[in-house]
């Protein structure tokens, strides 16, 4: 494999790609479709990528972004349409072939082997050989060379397990830069990076652009688009919606293009009636130090937002309240009583319900039926269980009631949860929150991976709970949710509380200004 020398060739290729104006685009997709059994994931989409630009793919989950990049990266083959690489039609049959064409992807799920070292991962599948044995020294030298060139402060002999997520991502990116690179695909690369790491990545992107690399960039963050994007292509339901220059785009326009609706149609008007304080957190510090002396309060009848980047500790605040994150210091009072360090069971008993962000991971028992899932947190209630035996007839009736109320499709409560669509799985998770009497709900990223229709239903669901007098804490990385649904918002940054905004103060600029390290003019 010639990959070891790839670094040198890359420098040579840079000059020719960068300046050429009239040359064909690096990559052009014409009428590309992808059908999976029973689903059209991508429907006659056009897309092109010029050398030296960052082309942002924008759209909701399920809009077809991932499918599109999987076609370009060689993970899938298109069902129809053609892909041109540098003006020539190309058949990209595998990830290997894509790499040979200079196309590399960094997905959210890393393809690293944790037990191997950085350099072993860098050359995985493309090991340099001499006489049939591994050329370890040569690989080590070129690993050092690649890491230095990219400016990544990584020890090539360290095992990947010991690296932070951001460092692992660096390895993944270095892997992409290992061979001759012309198209780089980044799928939500900043999702788990800190501010400093994000800055580093952006600097790297600028550097790559200068070398004539074309970058396909997937993100949900509008401020990132403004920062580094050149053009944006919006997809919806697997179809092409528009391609526009970043300069022409603003949030309202993008959300409209993405959802096909005006913002006011998505977010319901909520009638807030703040009452007594339900939850009070005082100087909370978690044992893992992901949260440091945070104090917040949530009243009945209001929706309080908790915003911040991934890793800002916003989720951990709620998890500490619910007894699943160890507390080092601080006091949590709920409904007038001290509940610091109580277990989830005890908090549920008192009417505190936490809806976790990842329904597959933490929310639902996927292979069991919808009914069983709905009442998993409520079986101790006298309505569902006698001293010894479950009251299954009553349970079934209640399940059907809840399913109708939330419009579960199909309306079959015995169906196992993993046979429902993502949106309907989310409804089962919400039904769980209605299975018992609850005074305070915490929704942690409630609309991840659901379509617009369900999203609207979820917002209305939250509004109804609030207007019925419940206290609601909404933890979200989705800025519009914070802006349009809450009457008060806390913004967290790296484990600390940055700001509290109320009512008309909750504007995009003000929230965002606290998301990041304050930029020095």
């Amino acid at each position, binding site marked *: 494999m010639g990959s070891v020398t790839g670094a040198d060739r890359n420098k040579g290729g840079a000059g020719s790609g960068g300046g050429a104006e009239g040359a064909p685009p690096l990559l052009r997709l014409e009428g590309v479709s992808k059908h999976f059994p029973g689903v059209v994931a991508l429907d006659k989409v056009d897309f092109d990528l010029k050398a030296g630009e960052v082309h942002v793919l924008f759209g909701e989950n399920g809009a077809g972004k991932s499918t599109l990049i999987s076609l370009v990266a060689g993970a899938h083959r298109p069902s129809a349409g053609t892909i041109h690489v540098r003006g020539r039609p190309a058949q990209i049959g595998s990830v290997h072939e894509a790499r040979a064409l200079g196309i590399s992807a960094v997905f959210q799920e890393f393809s690293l082997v944790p037990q191997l070292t950085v350099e072993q991962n860098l050359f995985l599948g493309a090991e340099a050989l001499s006489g049939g044995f591994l050329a370890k020294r040569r690989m080590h030298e070129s690993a050092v060379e690649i890491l230095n060139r990219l400016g990544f402060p990584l020890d090539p002999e360290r095992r990947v397990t010991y690296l932070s997520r951001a460092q692992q991502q660096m390895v993944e990116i270095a892997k992409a830069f290992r061979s001759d690179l012309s198209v780089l695909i980044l799928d939500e690369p900043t999702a788990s990076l800190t501010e400093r790491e994000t800055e580093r990545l952006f600097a790297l992107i600028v550097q790559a652009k200068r070398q004539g690399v074309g970058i396909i960039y997937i993100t949900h963050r509008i401020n990132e688009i403004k920062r580094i994007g050149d053009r944006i292509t919006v997809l919806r339901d697997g179809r092409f919606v528009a391609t526009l220059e970043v300069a022409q785009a603003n949030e309202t326009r993008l959300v409209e293009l993405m959802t096909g609706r005006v913002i006011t149609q998505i977010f319901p008007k909520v009638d807030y009636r703040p009452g007594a304080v339900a939850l009070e957190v005082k100087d909370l510090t978690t044992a893992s130090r992901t949260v440091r002396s945070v104090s917040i309060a949530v009243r009945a009848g209001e929706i309080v937002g908790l915003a911040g980047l991934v890793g800002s500790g916003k989720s951990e605040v709620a998890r500490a309240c619910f007894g699943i994150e160890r507390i080092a210091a601080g006091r949590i009072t709920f409904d007038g009583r001290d509940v610091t360090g109580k277990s989830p069971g005890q908090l549920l008993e008192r009417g505190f319900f936490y809806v976790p962000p990842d329904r597959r991971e933490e929310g639902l028992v996927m292979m069991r039926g919808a009914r069983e899932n709905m009442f998993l947190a409520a079986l101790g209630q006298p309505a569902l269980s006698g001293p010894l035996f479950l009251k299954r007839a009553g349970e079934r009736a209640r399940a059907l009631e809840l399913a109708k109320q939330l419009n579960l499709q*199909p309306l079959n409560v015995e169906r196992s949860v993993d046979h429902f669509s993502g949106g309907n799985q989310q409804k089962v998770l919400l039904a769980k929150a209605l299975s018992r009497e609850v005074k305070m709900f915490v929704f942690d990223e409630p609309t991840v991976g659901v379509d617009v229709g369900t999203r609207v239903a979820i917002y209305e669901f939250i509004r109804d709970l609030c207007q019925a007098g419940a206290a609601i804490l909404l933890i979200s990385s989705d800025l519009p949710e914070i802006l349009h649904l809450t009457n008060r918002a806390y913004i967290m940054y790296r484990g600390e509380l940055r700001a509290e905004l109320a009512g008309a103060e909750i504007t995009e600029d003000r929230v965002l200004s606290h998301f990041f390290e304050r930029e020095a003019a």
Partner: protein
Amino acid sequence: MAEAGSDGRRSRSTREWMQYAFVRLGVLPFLLLIAVAIFALLSENYLTWRNLVGVARQSTYLTMVAMGQMLALLTGGFDLSVGTMLAVTSVVGALAMTSVAAAAPDAVALAIGAGILAGFGAGLSIGIANGIGVAVFGVSPFMMTLGMASVGFGIALYLTGGVPVYGMPAEFGETFGFGSWFAIPVPIYVTIALMAILYVLLNWTRTGRYLYAIGGNIKASALSGINTRFNLFMAYVLCAALTAIAGIMLTARLETGEANIGASMPLESIAACVIGGVSLRGGTGRVGNVVLGAIFIGLVQNGMNLARIESYLQIVVIGVLLIVAVVADQLRQRLIATLRD
């Protein structure tokens, strides 16, 4: 999937029906039919009432252990120490019984009672150790139960010096091993009672529901306020309880306490569960199917005996059947995934 049968094309081909039945019922009905057909052809004694009652009785011990094993499997673990639980139960029970009988030769009921209690307690204590290791210390079920298998086997050998324990009151074997009531052997009644209890436990109590939930998704269960540690612990303890009862019944049948019984039990009990459709990943499985799985293994062993297949080869067949069942289950999962669209 329930509606899949009624809608769609009227005329299904035989192949589609087979597919549908396979997805709905799993591999067991097919294996059962094939096995019965083959052995009925090989031996005319196979499908007689006498033989079938014999098979049912012989299968009771495996059935009880498989039901226990099922509890561990439901939570996403397994129990490799069921074999030595049988051994320890048998040895300790027999030793207690013989020594009480020797001290008080007239108090037969006392001796039997003490023996049963001692054996049951000994078997249960292995389950308690398993439960503490898995649930409290988070040791993987594989290592924990494998370690306890060695511990238990060692204790059983140490206590007996490797020699079977004789001298239990004859009434013990006559009642629990060879006794029958209305022409049906006593072990079958015991098994049916345990089956009923387990069915109610799994389907009509919170504990049962929680065992399925923990096996399906332990994090979601913890967030639902379930005491996952306690319930995991209970799964291993209940597994041991069922296995210890099987050990007592088996001791009564053999009329000796032996350290070597049950060596094949871990494999056979897991095989019975898997053939009966219990997922190795936890979260799914039904009592009725596990019982059928155990009976199926009994039917095959009996059929092979009647067909005079060498006993060493029989071990080969059991292993092959287990693998076939797992492969068939994988195929079934794939089929479900494709049919879903």
